């Protein structure tokens, strides 16, 4: 029982990171139709930046917020490169984000080296149901919940959020009412960068990050995002949490080396299922 609680809470905490990354992917894809392969990089940039700022003497809170803003700025830069030029197709933009991801490796190694970095989070632990749980887990879960709530309010309550939704819903109509769809795409990239950044600063104290940690993060984030067809935030969040818990269980009860297989298997299953749905729909339409 104590083991189960341990795996559940630690899985939820890690899953929050996946969910945040997945939401970033969805936020960008809805507005721009671009699958952003540089999404994991945002988390790495934020995690490493926060670590550097903390060792430079900045207090907790400030360092993390600055790191998230830095990830947002990185998101904006990636967005400018990917969709800034008129007439770039989403497919070309995808390749650009993939390229930027690799370019970022070089820059990250130049700044931070190629060793894994971490920084201490919230110290201490609590005992619940016999399980010894780091307080950082609860900080991560709480902060992520706040982040999701803020994101939900942003999309459903604010005018800018509605305008982003409008671009997702009907880009032509958005332009017809005077919304600059490219600029909204850049807003989405910035937001996606910040979401990735939040994931990075929350997860780094749990598991150290290095320049190439983005692969594992994007794999899990993508698996979460694809549950909602890359267009729906709710399924991406729930998918991320479920994935975190499932991987934690696999690692705990079986073998840690099998945990990323869970994400890949889920991703494949969802994609095959969706592809079959699509084929069925097309066949239906062709009749």
């Amino acid at each position: 029982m104590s083991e189960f609680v341990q795996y559940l809470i630690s899985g939820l905490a890690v899953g929050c990171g996946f969910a945040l990354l997945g939401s970033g992917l969805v936020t960008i894809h809805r507005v721009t139709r671009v699958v952003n392969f540089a999404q994991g990089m945002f988390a790495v940039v934020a995690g490493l930046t926060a670590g550097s700022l903390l060792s430079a003497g900045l207090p907790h809170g400030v360092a993390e917020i600055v790191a998230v803003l830095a990830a947002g700025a990185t998101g904006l830069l990636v967005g400018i490169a990917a969709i800034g030029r008129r007439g770039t197709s989403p497919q070309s933009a995808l390749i650009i984000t993939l390229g930027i991801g690799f370019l970022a490796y070089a820059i990250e190694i130049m700044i931070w080296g190629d060793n894994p970095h971490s920084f201490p989070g919230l110290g201490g632990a609590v005992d619940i149901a016999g399980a010894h749980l780091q307080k950082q887990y609860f900080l991560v879960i709480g902060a992520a919940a706040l982040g999701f709530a803020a994101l939900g309010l942003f999309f459903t309550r604010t005018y800018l959020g509605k305008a982003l939704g409008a671009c997702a819903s009907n880009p032509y109509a958005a332009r017809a009412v005077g919304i600059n769809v490219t600029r909204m795409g850049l807003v989405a990239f910035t937001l996606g960068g910040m979401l990735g950044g939040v994931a990075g600063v929350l997860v780094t104290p749990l598991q150290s990050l290095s320049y190439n940690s983005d692969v594992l993060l994007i794999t899990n984030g993508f698996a979460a995002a694809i549950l909602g067809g890359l267009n729906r935030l709710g399924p991406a969040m729930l998918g991320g949490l479920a994935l975190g818990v499932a991987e934690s269980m696999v690692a705990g009860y079986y073998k840690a080396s099998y945990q990323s297989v869970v994400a890949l298997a889920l991703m494949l299953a969802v994609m095959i299922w969706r592809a079959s749905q699509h084929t069925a729909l097309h066949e239906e339409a062709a009749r």
Partner: protein
Amino acid sequence: MSPSETARDVASPAGAQDSAPAERPVITVEDVVIRYGTATAVDRVGLTVAAGETVALIGPNGAGKSSLVNAIMGLIRPAAGSVRVHGRAALVPEGRQLFPELDVEDNLRLGAWPLRSQGAKARDTTRVYEVLPDLADLRRRRAGTLSGGQQQMVAFGRALMADPEVLVVDELSLGLAPLITAALADHLRELNAARGLAVLLIEQNARLALDLCTRAYVLEAGRIRIEGPSRQLADSAEVAAAYLGGAAEPPGPEGDDG
């Protein structure tokens, strides 16, 4: 009548005929050329809409009407020529083009996007519900679930939210039942008469367009072929043969389906 109007008359070019626009223009299109690759969709077209005026742009499918609309709205850049909009133009796009997942209220609010610097008051939708009261009952319905006529009404309301000087209506009647078209046409007349809202109506139903507007242009194969007061166009044998389905007849009090 008022002193200010007299002053404006003095400032306008002398010797203008009574049919020509003496008011300041809200849309001026000069020598516009629009190309898609090597195909020329619009070839040196000129067009003006004066403040408070109702102008029709008629012509067959593929004449370049929608290209011209997109250029006027700044959605495409012409290869040559100039488009000037004085004040604000708002578009009622062809095929409604709503945000189907959003409710009517949000669709309307987004119409006020050009006024976003003016704060929340500019997004107040009550002014549209006053003009189009049928929409008030639908405000929480998702736009995608509405009928064609209701959607066209939302598209109108959304355009009005921008407080435009000129409303550009791309295909008012397309896909709508005649009764619904007639009701929307009445709304347009009312908005024009009550608020002095200028209208540029792009329409395949030439009878409806000539009936609704005081002046008209006929666009064919990318060029303006005929222009003039609607009454004159309706009487012309050329227009009658091509667009009104037969010989010219005096415009009746109500448009029938001829």
